[in-house]
């Protein structure tokens, strides 16, 4: 269809040919980002969380694994019967909740970062291929996406982790295998749309190779959507990891996770509500932050809205 267009209708001067992201940005990118309040707030929180996770050994008041049955089920610092130094109290094994929370951020953020990035790469590559080459490639990829969508995601992730075996890599692989479709569908649609635009047709007529066009023209235009999606996916990954930990299929018990703490807190809910409340609050705020960051990024980076 694209080839049928008259060639002379596609001049490649700077005015009509096309705006890659860099050309398009009249204002510097960071200004748009800072103008979006949600990006600033959510981004700062997540940056802080990342620092806390990285420097956990220096920040955490105690060893998250150290048990002391004499000090079990201590309430948080503001409640009656609290022990100084145990800000958020202790669990039934006498482990410090705050320290476990801080170390738990490590697992949560690792999974978020690695799983979301890998899912984005896998999904985007398949989506780009399907959207660009269409035909057989598209047929195969789309059918695969359909079958994937017929699985309940939670069940599928549990199934996958059960098959691969528990552990951090298994959790990451499971998330990637489940959620690549999110990226694939969006990137495929976007690629199809971009491929039909004047500037891509122009690039083709003056003899750029397909791969060059994909990389030079289409990828930069798909990038803003992708960045937003990655942020949203990180939130999803944090939740999935928590769910798998909750069910007991994530990392081994000598590494504190929010999901694991939640499962434990659920067991002793009637004795120590704070063991559940603390990680749940962290999970909530973190998921909300990824969500808002993603939404904010989508707005700030949207090429249409930027002009």
């Amino acid at each position, binding site marked *: 269809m694209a080839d049928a267009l008259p060639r002379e209708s596609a001049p490649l001067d700077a005015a009509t040919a096309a705006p890659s992201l860099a050309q398009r940005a009249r204002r510097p990118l960071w200004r748009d980002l800072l103008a979006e309040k949600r990006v600033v707030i959510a981004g700062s929180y997540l940056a802080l969380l990342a620092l806390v996770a990285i420097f956990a050994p220096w920040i955490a008041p105690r060893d998250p694994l150290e048990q002391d049955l004499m000090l079990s089920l201590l309430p948080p610092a503001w409640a009656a019967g609290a022990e100084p130094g145990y800000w958020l109290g202790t669990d039934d094994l006498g482990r410090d909740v705050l320290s476990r929370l801080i170390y738990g951020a490590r697992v949560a953020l690792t999974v978020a970062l690695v799983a979301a990035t890998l899912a984005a790469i896998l999904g985007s590559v398949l989506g780009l291929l399907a959207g660009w080459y269409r035909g057989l490639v598209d047929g195969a990829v789309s059918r695969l996406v359909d079958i994937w969508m017929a699985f309940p995601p939670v069940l599928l992730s*549990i199934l996958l982790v059960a098959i691969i075996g528990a552990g951090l890599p298994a959790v990451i692989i499971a998330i990637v295998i489940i959620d690549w479709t999110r990226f694939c569908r969006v990137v495929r649609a976007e690629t199809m749309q971009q491929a039909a635009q004047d500037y891509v047709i122009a690039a083709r007529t003056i003899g750029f190779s397909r791969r060059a066009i994909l990389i030079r023209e289409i990828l930069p235009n798909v990038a803003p959507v992708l960045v937003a999606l990655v942020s949203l996916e990180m939130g999803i990954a944090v939740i999935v990891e928590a769910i798998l930990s909750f069910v007991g299929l994530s990392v081994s018990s000598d590494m504190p996770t929010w999901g694991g703490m939640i499962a434990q807190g659920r067991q002793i809910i009637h004795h120590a509500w704070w063991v559940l409340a603390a990680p749940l609050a962290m999970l909530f705020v973190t998921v*909300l932050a990824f969500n808002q960051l993603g939404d904010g990024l989508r707005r700030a980076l949207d090429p249409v809205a930027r002009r």
Partner: protein
Amino acid sequence: MSLAAVLRRLATAAVTLFGVAVVVFVLLRVAPGDPIAMMIGPGASEADIAALRARYGLDQGLVTQFFIWLQGLIAGDLGTSISLRSDVLGLLGQRLPATLELAGAALVVALLVGGTIAILGTLARRSPGEAVVDGANGLLLAVPDFIWALAFVLVFAVFIPVFPLTGRMDPTIDMDFATRFFLLESLVRAEFAVFGNIVSHMTMPVLALALPLAAIVARVLKGALIEAMGQDYVLLARLKGKSELRLVLQEALRNALPATLALTGVQFTFLVGGTVIIERIFAYPGIGNMAIDAVINRDLPLIQGIVLAFGAMFIAINLAVDLAVAALNPRLRHG
């Protein structure tokens, strides 16, 4: 939708379902881990293990196993659960109604809550109230069912203990049910004490499942309602003195529903998928809760049966949504 279109949809659905079955089957067989070993534990003799393997058909080749399973499936036999030692179809029959009632109730609540938010937002449009409604909805939109469920556990089971924490109803209840649809049956048979007890057990899981979907319903419906409210027929009705609320309910709602239903249909399948973890949290005896145990115990026949049941539900939902959309649109209804 014409009969031919329905049949075509069913045919594609069957193919997808078959694809799901194949994927699950292959995944489970190539996975490490031996269900029989999990079942009898250490100390069993080689002969015992071999006998059990033969009993569950696990000594056959992969392809043979698949065809045996497929044959059974067509004959309505889903095999025998290894961990629960009973007929998979029977287990599904026992547990599926609980999940269906949970998901169905959540759908109804989601539509009611989402519809209310959308109507409030529409009535408050272009006023300060709209930002409040939109903000609340944005929060609902961002929080997944898992977090809701646990927040409810914390609030309604501990701080303000009004709802029971686990199960489908009090174990002390002694009623002879003819079906496994306890909620519906107790209502139909006017056993209101039992009905109330079931409702109080279902409140937290239903709300947890319903709120994220409600947020999506609200967002889509509000957009469609506001668009409809700008149409001339609404202006004419307003001139006749209809109140804004009646305009929304009588004039705009019907026109906004098809688009909303179509968009929320897919989201409802996510809700159904969410029952897995929500049932776990509330120890609710549905197939989702059973699924997690089945996976942990590597109970292959049971996992396959459950995944198929979920796949079938997903497909049924999509079909039902298409039919509902068609039924709501007079243009399509009359051909």
